[in-house]
């Protein structure tokens, strides 16, 4: 875990200075998932971004990539603000790609034990 930050930060700091607006580029789902877990997004949002008492539902993400990065820099409510010193735009693009890759949930009607609560 400790090594990860060095691994992620150093190369991407360089990337950041060369190309500050990489957020529209497609990120890497695998890298994004790893970052999502390592920096603790999952702690509040759940490992598949399903949300809960500690954080909003973000998988699939409710915002576009730019809005997503903007939000993380200056979040609403109690969500911690992550600056580009700790998470670069590149990292967040990867995280966004991961969240995008999460399929929409099964419809409630296909989950009988949940569906039967409807109308009760």
């Amino acid at each position, binding site marked *: 875990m400790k090594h990860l930050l060095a691994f992620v930060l150093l190369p991407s700091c360089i990337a950041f200075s060369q190309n500050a607006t990489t957020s529209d580029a497609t990120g890497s789902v695998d890298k994004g998932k790893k970052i999502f877990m*390592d920096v603790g997004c999952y702690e509040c949002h*759940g490992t598949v971004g399903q949300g*809960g*008492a500690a*954080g909003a539902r973000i998988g699939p993400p409710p915002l576009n990539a730019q809005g997503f990065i903007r939000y993380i820099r200056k979040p609403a409510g109690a969500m911690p603000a992550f600056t580009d010193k700790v998470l670069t735009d590149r990292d967040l693009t990867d995280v966004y790609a991961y969240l995008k890759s999460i399929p929409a949930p099964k419809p409630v009607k296909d989950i009988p034990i949940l569906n039967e609560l409807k109308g009760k």
Partner: protein
Amino acid sequence: MSKSKSSASKPSSSQSALGRRGFLKGTAAGAAALVAGEAAIAPVVKAQTPARAVTPLPGATQIAAETNAPPMRVDVYTTDRPGSDFMLDVIKTLDFEYCCANPGSSFRGLHESMVNYGKNKMPELITCCHEESSVAMAHGYAKIEGKPLMVMAHGTVGLQHASMAIYNAYADRVPVYVVLGNIGAAEWRRTDVEWAHSVQDAAAMVRDYVKWDDNPVTLQHFAESSVRAYKMSMTPPYEPVVIIADAVLQEEPMSDFDRRTARIPKLNLSQPPASDGNSVNEIARMLVNAENPLIIAGRVARTPEGIRLLVELAETVQAGVSDRHYRMNFPTMHPLNVGGPIGGGTVTTVANADVILSLEVGDLWMATHSQTPINRMGMESKPLTKAGAKIITIYSGDLFGKSNYQDFGRYNEVDLSIAADAEATLPSLIEACKKLITPQRQRAMQERGAKLAESAKRLRDRDIEAAAYGWDASPISTARVSMELWNQIKTEDWSLVSETFPFFSAWPLRLWDMNKSYHYIGGHGAYGVGYQAPAAVGAALANRKHGRLTVNIQTDGDLNYAPGVLWTAAHHKIPILNIMHNKRAYHQELMYLTDMAARANRGIDTALIGTGINDPNIDYATLAKAYGVYSIGPIINPIDLAPAIKKAIAAVKKGEPALVDVVTQPR
């Protein structure tokens, strides 16, 4: 009687009363001797008597008694009536079903009386592996049964172990009855252990968070203080109490004097204080005329009747109810339930309300204000209420306060504050409201009620949709665990005995139909971790005789404080279904670490250091098995969950505890 011991004195005032009587007997004997012919002294004494009473000079018998060698010591080995038997007689009048204790020498006398003289019934001893477990079991038991369970512990090391659990019960307004052993008189301490286990003022350590304590020095004193302690504990606000059972009083024979005179006073519980009629009429007027009244429920329902009354009040005035979930106050599926702290239920409804009636809410300020969140520097707070909104409180906590521990929260400005018990006030408030409702108000209320019902349905549909997200994820989502559980318990007479907000994202509160007093019992009180596992077993102990299926969603960090309570459940055959919320971290602290790192703008990937409970992962099924508990797990794939729950319920139905280790999402 072993009074003949030459160098030992019994440190009780019954002994000193006897001593005084001995002295009086001595003076009488002296006077008799005087009459019998101590002629030389007699005239002098007589000459002095007319003017004023004079202490006669010692007679020959007394002089002999004081100067001759004392009678030989006679070794007395047994007694037919140790003081602890009388103490148990006292305790039996208080009707405790159980006494939870980890054995300790300072109450060995009382322990022996319980199992032999008392035949281990009413109370029956429950063997606990930690005093924190004893008290937390009593905490959980009281929340189901509505009355205290007895706990015994050492006045020193036992109380030190027990103290956090006592604080939890105190903050949660729960009656717990703690009896502490102690050897008060120094010369009776036989070993270095007994010196180390003795204390001048045992209850001092917990006096900041109990309602009352006493250190009785005679058996009669013990009788009165024990009954008084029970009464105080059970007068709202309910709180823990502590009584010291002096070890010498326990172990030495009951004196002739005590045998003749000691009396156990009758217990009569106080009527809880209800609001006066004028205030009730004023509250009713405000509620009936409100456009958008909101009831915030804290620890309202002390009894099952409290739930019925709160429903009746809400329906009478068609007010929304926001439950803080410290107790089962209001049915989760009721159309007037506007949601609790989760899902913003309180925030939006507080902002819309023109009259807020707060019933037994200790943290009302938190419910009616926002604060700068943890992700920003500084602290600013704002009211959530709209301008002109009126706040009424009925709060028994206003009748009782302590200063040191800060569980009372911030001072809240209100418009009408009633220091009374809410449940006791509800009947007259409901009647007063009914009298004031005109047909016109009735129509307005019905329209409001219909709107609230619609929004409750929307909230519920939203929750059902939200539960589908992450349904097939591994670690298993807390919504999935909640629904797999619900699916198998919904046709049983079930009782959920764990706090689920925020730990389990409140899914059971959002999805399950809870309407009975034992369907939900709230949580810790003071968030002292280590409460959950033993409190659940205590609640299950109370549920056992009612044949209820007790369900405990058990967080991993909490179980690791004192897992020995699993053995207690196995040993005493306490049926309980434990579902592990195994997230492999002290998760709240893990999130806080991430918050702190983000604030400090560095190292956001190090938060698991000091907060993770991984590497190695703990195998809770094996742990439970070691304690004699039927167990399954770890369950990692959601597909395996339903069959595991089914098997565990079958075991519980046979009358034993079971544990399913489920590797879950953190929240």
